[in-house]
């Protein structure tokens, strides 16, 4: 039975249900319990934003705090995955990939191929991403394009509590290494989530709004901004089809192409920086495989090619907003050869 819970609670519930179901699932990360070795509470935090709160008491010995040593504990999660556990490691902010990326992209991602198909590495790396919390340049990046580029990794970025639960359960059950991106500005978003366990398959984009005039392809927090824009545009007589990718690797090319073939107009909305991004990748896909259907140039709505700024006025300008999305849609809708 569905009831409204937050994105944060949905992730916590997915972890709890999978830990209940499967003893090999463990959770580790900095302050994931919170307070290890300290004189006060030993489950003080449940992660820096409280996502893993309560799991430490529910599953004794299976929620591990770590030193601030991302290479060591992300690598340990990967090693443990090769040895029969299903670890869910938390890379607190994806911006910290710089201190542990080798273990992810040279080790976990490549074991299966390098070893001729003989390795299985069912590790999940949960990580926070995205701007909006005035956390500035080193705590606000998107960076999923970096991981999407790497063969051997799967990359997931849920936009709703429902998807967060179902995609995380799939990630934990999946036999490949999965990067699970949680947008920090969505943690308090509420939505209907079934109490029972369910898995959402990877590589199946979600058409969150149907429309015949313009296709908007997006993911994560930008799904909500795109839906807001689409709602306003409907009042102006422009019907948008909004596609939430859910996973960037695998990428659901069919759903994107089918929609573009129908509308002939494409706007890609991506919070990441624009070079070598999902936005450019998807526009290349449409240009290559749906060229004959396109009736207007593709518009990209992205962050600028800058670090994420601190000051609220600057950060608000940095993040693609419904107004910019609306303008882009109008541009392609009104395009005339």
């Amino acid at each position: 039975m569905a009831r409204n819970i937050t994105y944060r609670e949905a992730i916590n519930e997915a972890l709890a249900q999978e830990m209940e179901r499967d003893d090999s699932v463990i959770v580790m990360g900095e302050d994931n319990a919170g307070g290890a070795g300290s004189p006060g509470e030993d489950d003080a935090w449940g992660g820096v934003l409280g996502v893993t709160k309560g799991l430490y008491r529910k599953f004794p010995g299976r929620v591990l705090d770590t030193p601030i040593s991302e290479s060591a504990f992300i690598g340990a999660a990967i090693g443990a995955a090769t040895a029969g556990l299903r670890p869910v490691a938390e890379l607190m902010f994806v911006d910290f990939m710089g201190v542990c990326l080798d273990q992810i992209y040279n080790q976990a991602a490549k074991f299966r191929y390098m070893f001729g198909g003989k390795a299985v590495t069912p590790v999940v790396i949960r990580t926070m991403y995205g701007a909006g919390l005035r956390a500035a340049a080193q705590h606000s990046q998107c960076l999923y394009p970096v991981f999407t580029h790497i063969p051997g990794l799967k990359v997931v970025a849920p936009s709703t509590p429902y998807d967060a639960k179902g995609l995380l359960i799939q990630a934990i059950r999946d036999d490949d290494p999965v990067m699970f991106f949680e947008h920090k500005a969505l943690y308090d978003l509420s939505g209907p989530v079934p109490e029972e366990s369910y898995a959402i398959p990877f590589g199946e984009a979600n058409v969150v709004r149907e429309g015949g005039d313009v296709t908007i392809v997006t993911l994560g927090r930008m799904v909500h901004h795109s839906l807001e824009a689409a709602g306003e545009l409907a009042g102006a007589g422009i019907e948008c089809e909004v596609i939430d990718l859910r996973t960037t690797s695998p990428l659901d090319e069919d759903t994107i192409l089918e929609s573009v073939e129908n509308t002939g107009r494409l706007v890609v909305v991506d919070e990441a920086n624009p070079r070598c991004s999902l936005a450019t990748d998807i526009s290349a896909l449409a240009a290559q495989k749906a060229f004959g259907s396109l009736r207007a140039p593709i518009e990209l709505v992205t962050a600028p090619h800058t670090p994420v700024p601190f000051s609220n006025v600057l950060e608000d300008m940095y993040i693609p907003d419904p107004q910019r999305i609306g303008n882009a849609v109008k541009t392609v809708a009104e395009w005339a050869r």
Partner: protein
Amino acid sequence: MTGTQEHTALTRDQLLNAYRTMRTIREFEERVHKEFATGEIPGFVHLYAGEEASAVGICSNLNDRDSIASTHRGHGHCIAKGVDVAEMMAEIYGRQTGSCHGKGGSMHIADLSKGMLGANGIVGGGPPLICGTALAAKLKGTGGVSVAFFGDGASNQGTTLESMNLATVWNLPAVFVAENNGYAETTSSSWSVASDNIADRADAFGMPGVIVDGFDFFAVHEAASQAISRAREGGGPSLLEIKFTRYYGHFEGDQQTYRADEVEHARAELDCLNRFVGRVTQTGQLTRDDLAAVDTEVSALIDRAVGEAKAAPLPTAADLLTDVYVRY
């Protein structure tokens, strides 16, 4: 350095196995050295010749529930952990019949069913991984121990130091084995390692650190036995620093202009196989005939491995795209 008469405790079979494995590594590497010069072997190859006492001294204390992570100089660790020698040779030749079906090569030979987590092209790539296998063994209660082999170069990598810290913090059944062959590529460890010895760093991570004569199988075996027993019994991690010389360059093709004449000296005076033979024949546990029989057997094994590798099929276009994911 530790030196010991403990070898009298090893059985005749154990001694024969240790000799066979060391001899297999030596023959394998000498043969790869020779064959590489013909141009038939592609890519980068880093030879372990001269270092056999380390891999065998450590791994002869391990079983299949124990895991090791290796380095770019990984052939010796693979053989010592029981990876099939013919499949390894085929892999080095890039053949479909290789350990990794020709998709890994010398630097990525692995056999997870034997607890061999792979040679590794990244210096310092292994220590975090064995923290994970050690954690899995601890949580599952298998009694397994995990060993990270790494070089003097990797002893300066953050991953190695972070992993030693984590292993103590989590009290993991782990052993860190620093194989100090004197050079990180061309750079002398006497220059690049800021402490006098790599083993000195153990103190900083709350674990015992032991310096071992890497030319002496028995010294390595004894030190490893203590560290591995300690780990297996829940006593936590240890650091061993195995000191020796590699007989060849960083990789095949290295002109080694940075070196003095230490290889000649080591081959003549210190060689681990010669020392092993001297000691076991002196104590009378094995005879020259016993050892000669092993030599003949090993020589035939390596001949067969090379012959099979050269005759084996190359991978096909279909192999390019498989095994990226379990399912995608």
